[in-house]
């Protein structure tokens, strides 16, 4: 039985008067176990940072409750919540050196100097900032400030570590290295961390579970794999994954014992009735219109597929992204070899029903993923 590190129940955040102000977070409920790393993923203004700041205590909770380590904290001052935070804007104390900045909270907690020094040294090594420990925040680069700020949060012992865009300013190579180290560090010490990010690679690499947010609403809260394979709705499906999922509206029909997914421009994806599992087939046939989604990796070129016309062809060094005009929209497919296709070249594509995501046309909720119902 794992202890709960954070429980958010029915939290609303309004900027301005309740029920009339800007509704930034809508009825959010989440439960995070001790030792978990959770990423809040979403685009700007989706409510992820508001959520983080409510947990930290910098924003009032308009409605609902927040508990850290089974202790209700949403009315307590930040200092009493026992959480550590790394800020997006770094927020280092200008008159203190990097070392003093990092050691600050430990000194305030009256740890012996030898222990403080040892901790600073180990975190500095982890984040590769040993050589700038004696410098002042104003004299180091943005990336270094960010690591110092991250170090200041990680060095503390707290029930919860909140990391707001912890690696946004780092260069890609360093980011990749640090991701691994930080994850190891957090896991080794059994810390619980919540990171806010708009970078899905980071979320995938670091997090045990990802909470996808949009418009202040939690869209899906699940493991990275399940979010990718079983997106709960159209938003998650198109938001997570690079390049994004291809989506098309389709009318469901039948002819000559086959299921037709009729797309715009007179195109149609035709499948044998037996190509779908029984429950998925029943769901499909009970509807008139659906939205279908196909990951770019799942689109195959084949001789007898549906026709499309190449509109862009990019070799990225390890894979080819081909965009094609298809069914009144654009279809992106990814191939691992370098593909020679001229612009305007006709191709034929086919989509295995096992890779088909079906969403409700009106609500965007997922209906099925491949052979399984959502």
């Amino acid at each position: 039985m794992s202890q709960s590190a954070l429980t958010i129940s029915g939290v609303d955040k309004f900027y301005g008067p309740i029920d009339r102000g800007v509704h930034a977070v809508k009825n959010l409920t989440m439960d995070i176990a001790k030792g978990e790393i959770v990423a809040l993923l979403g685009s700007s203004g989706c409510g992820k940072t508001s959520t983080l700041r409510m947990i930290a205590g910098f924003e009032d909770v308009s409605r609902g409750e927040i508990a850290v380590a089974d202790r209700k904290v949403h009315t307590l001052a930040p200092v009493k919540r026992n959480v550590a935070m790394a800020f997006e804007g770094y927020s280092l104390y200008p008159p203190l050196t990097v070392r003093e900045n990092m050691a600050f909270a430990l000194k305030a907690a009256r740890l012996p100097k030898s222990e403080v020094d040892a901790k600073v040294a180990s975190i500095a090594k982890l984040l590769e900032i040993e050589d700038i420990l004696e410098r002042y925040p104003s004299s180091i680069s943005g990336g270094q400030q960010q690591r110092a700020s991250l170090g200041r949060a990680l060095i503390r012992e707290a029930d919860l570590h909140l990391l707001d865009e912890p690696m946004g300013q780092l260069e890609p190579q360093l980011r990749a290295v640090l991701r691994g180290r930080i994850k190891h560090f957090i896991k080794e010490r059994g810390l619980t961390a919540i990171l806010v990010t708009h970078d899905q690679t980071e979320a995938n690499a670091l997090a045990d579970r990802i909470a996808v947010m949009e418009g202040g609403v939690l869209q899906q809260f699940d493991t990275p794999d399940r979010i990718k394979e079983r997106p709960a709705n159209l938003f998650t499906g198109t938001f997570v994954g690079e390049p994004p999922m291809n989506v098309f509206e389709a009318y469901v029909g039948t002819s000559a014992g086959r299921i037709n997914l009729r797309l715009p421009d007179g195109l149609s994806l035709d499948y044998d009735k037996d190509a779908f599992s029984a429950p998925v087939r029943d769901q499909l046939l009970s509807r008139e219109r659906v939205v279908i989604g196909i990951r770019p990796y799942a689109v195959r070129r084949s001789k007898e597929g549906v026709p499309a016309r190449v509109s862009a062809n990019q070799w990225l060094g390890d894979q080819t992204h081909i965009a094609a005009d298809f069914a009144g929209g654009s279809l992106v497919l990814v191939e691992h070899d370098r593909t020679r296709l001229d612009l305007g070249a006709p191709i034929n594509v086919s989509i295995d029903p096992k890779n088909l995501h079906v969403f409700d046309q009106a609500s965007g909720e997922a209906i099925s993923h491949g052979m399984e119902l959502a």
Partner: protein
Amino acid sequence: MEHTSLLERILRGVALTLVVIFFMFPIVWIFMMSFQTNETILRIPPQLIFEPTLANYTALITGKLMTAAGTLDIAFMRNLGNSVFLSVTSVAVSLLLGVPAAYAFARHKFRGSEDIAFTLLSFKFAPALLVLLPLTLYFQKLGLANTYIGLIWVYQLICLPLILWIVRGYFEDIPADIEYAYRIGGHSWFATFRKIALPLAGPGIAAAGLLAFIFAWNNFVFALVLASADKQPVTVGALAFITSSGIQYGQISAAIVLSITPTLALALYAQRYLVEGLSLGAVKG
């Protein structure tokens, strides 16, 4: 260095000289007048060469003014003391009240906060003379007329809005996250204000304090109406040099030199400190 042609440098030099002469002339002239007797000052045409005398300064410092009509007692040194006391105390009170208020206005948006801040600023819109009449009547009823407390209170009309609005801007420039980082690190609200917000806004508080000091020092009309001789600052005290036997230009000049010296010294000293503080202030970055 920027690369400039000779002509450009000469023209710039000339322009700078003109500006300096324009602004420095009155001060230099007063400085020269302060070392002359009334006779040499009033000579026509005025002459640059004269025999300097310290008589004006001696008269001010000893408090005995020799005129053709006889010896006059003047309270200039006491006035100077009053000026220092009134200005320093007013600014101190203003800082004590204004800085926490500025912090509150900068950090906590509450219902009506903008209105209150604006009301405080609007004190500066009212012409002093308009305020004075009712104020004098009230102060006489309250027994505050001709007291230091009453004067310092009225001086808050000058100092408080200034400090409040300048310092508020400085507090708003400090990223709130820096304070949050301190608070989440286990410190109270008040410790954050004292250890983070105050030091970071230090240069701004100093600048506002200095400005308020100069305004308070230069105030004339409030003190003229509300204070009698023994509580007057130099600005009002200088009127005593307009005597029945003529205007004592030499003494007035000496008095001006003595009374601008503290503010000038403070400004020069603080200027260095302010520039340093502002450029070092790593709030942004």
